[in-house]
């Protein structure tokens, strides 16, 4: 018979066994009025993330919480919603599906894989390493964003259509209060020799590139009280308005 300590361990192992699997599925969809570049960025993400399900365009500007039902229908617990405004600006919602929280980002500096002539390449559906900047732990809003990013961009182990090797890394860095995304291929020159591999490993960028500027965080998924609001965020409309007024002044003088 086993000693009490071992049986306790076994019980603990048994109780933790069902939750061992990371069950993340992401629903990827956009609003109407996205430009070709936004569409290409979405395609890139769809290719890179095998655990995501692409939905058709969502055509409602006010009742965004309906997306939660869509996510439920697709068995998705994460939502990546690209919202386009005036055919120019792109916003990204990251939400935990039924109950939140959710974040809205302004997506800037979008460069799709197609535009960037980068020589990197990786297996379709291989799981990425996620690399986060140190400053993600410095502020509570960034800590929460980090978790949301891990849930949406981290491909769970054993996902259907995923490949068993790891050959690329998603890098998230905070700079200027914004989150910069990069995707690199891991190139190992000599995988057989187990020497100091740091000398042998290099990275080659694959693309795409984009920058996420957090605007607001909500308690619920697309609804709820505001958890955090970026004080430094200036809306693109305000920027454009200012530009226009300056132009007027210039012309008047």
């Amino acid at each position, binding site marked *: 018979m086993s000693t009490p300590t071992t049986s306790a361990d076994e019980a603990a192992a048994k109780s933790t066994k069902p939750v061992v699997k990371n069950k993340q599925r992401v629903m990827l969809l956009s609003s109407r009025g996205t430009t070709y570049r936004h569409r290409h960025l979405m395609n890139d993400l769809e290719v*890179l993330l095998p655990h995501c399900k692409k939905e058709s365009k969502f055509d409602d500007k006010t009742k965004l919480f309906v997306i939660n039902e869509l996510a439920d229908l697709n068995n998705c617990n994460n939502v990546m919603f690209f919202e386009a405004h005036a055919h120019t600006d792109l916003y990204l919602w990251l939400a935990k599906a039924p109950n*939140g929280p959710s974040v809205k980002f302004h997506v800037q500096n979008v460069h799709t894989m197609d535009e960037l002539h980068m020589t990197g390449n990786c297996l379709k559906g291989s799981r990425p390493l996620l690399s986060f900047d140190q400053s993600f732990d410095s502020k509570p809003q960034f800590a929460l964003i*980090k978790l949301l990013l891990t849930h949406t961009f981290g491909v769970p182990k054993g996902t259907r259509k995923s490949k068993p090797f790891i050959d690329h890394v998603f890098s998230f*860095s905070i700079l200027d209060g914004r989150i910069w995304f*990069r995707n690199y291929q891991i190139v190992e020159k000599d995988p057989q020799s187990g020497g100091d591999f740091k000398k042998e*490993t290099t990275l080659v960028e694959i693309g795409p590139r984009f920058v996420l500027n957090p605007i607001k965080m909500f308690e619920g998924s697309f609804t709820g009280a505001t958890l955090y609001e970026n004080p430094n965020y200036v809306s693109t409309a305000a920027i454009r308005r200012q530009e226009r007024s300056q132009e007027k002044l210039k012309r008047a003088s």
Partner: protein
Amino acid sequence: MGALEAYTEHLKLSLPWIETMAITAEKEYPIPDPDDDLKRELAFYTQALDAVSEGKAQVKKAGVAFTRPDDYFAEMVKSDDHMQRIRRELMKESLAIKASEDAKRQRELKKIGKKVQVEKIRERQQQKTKALDQISQLKRKRQNMSMADDDGGSGAYDDLFDVDVEDNVDDVPIKRSMKGKRADSKSKPTRTQRDKKYGFGGPKRNSRSNTFESTHEMREKPKSRIIGKKSKRLGKSRRHQKA
């Protein structure tokens, strides 16, 4: 701010690392100026590279394969077609760089060539003036000689140089303007003569406008040109093939 932390706690997954493979850097990668592309990208790169070195160790520890074996082939994120396009683009870029470098070198060479040419022309000019100088000196000497002794002693000098100096000087081309001045006996030809010689195009103005006669002329309308059938524009793929 309490709510934020509560939600963070709520979202945390108590799973083994291999399920998410998320690595948070322990080091700072300072970027002084976000607009400095090169330094910024280098910081991102080193951050990712350090994450890879740590991630690889962790993956190995979890007993999961990391490196793709050489004989494992599967669909890639970028298709072969896409990679081909990238390669072509890179090739074009390198060719453009090479061409511009070539052009620069050519320009440089041209500059040097020009310098050499100018130098040569100046040298020739110098030689010419020197020669003329010598000749005039010689002439003066001969004159002096002939003045000094009129008993035909100059003949010896004539024989020494086997050239007729006086004739040679006359052969030196004189500028056209000088010629004109010297021959002022010839006056300028008359306007009509000059027109006859050089040609007079006639007044340019009003030549294309209608006159009384032309407006009353009953002519047939010129037949419209038959416009040749344009070659049909090829489809996109074939056009690109051609290019």
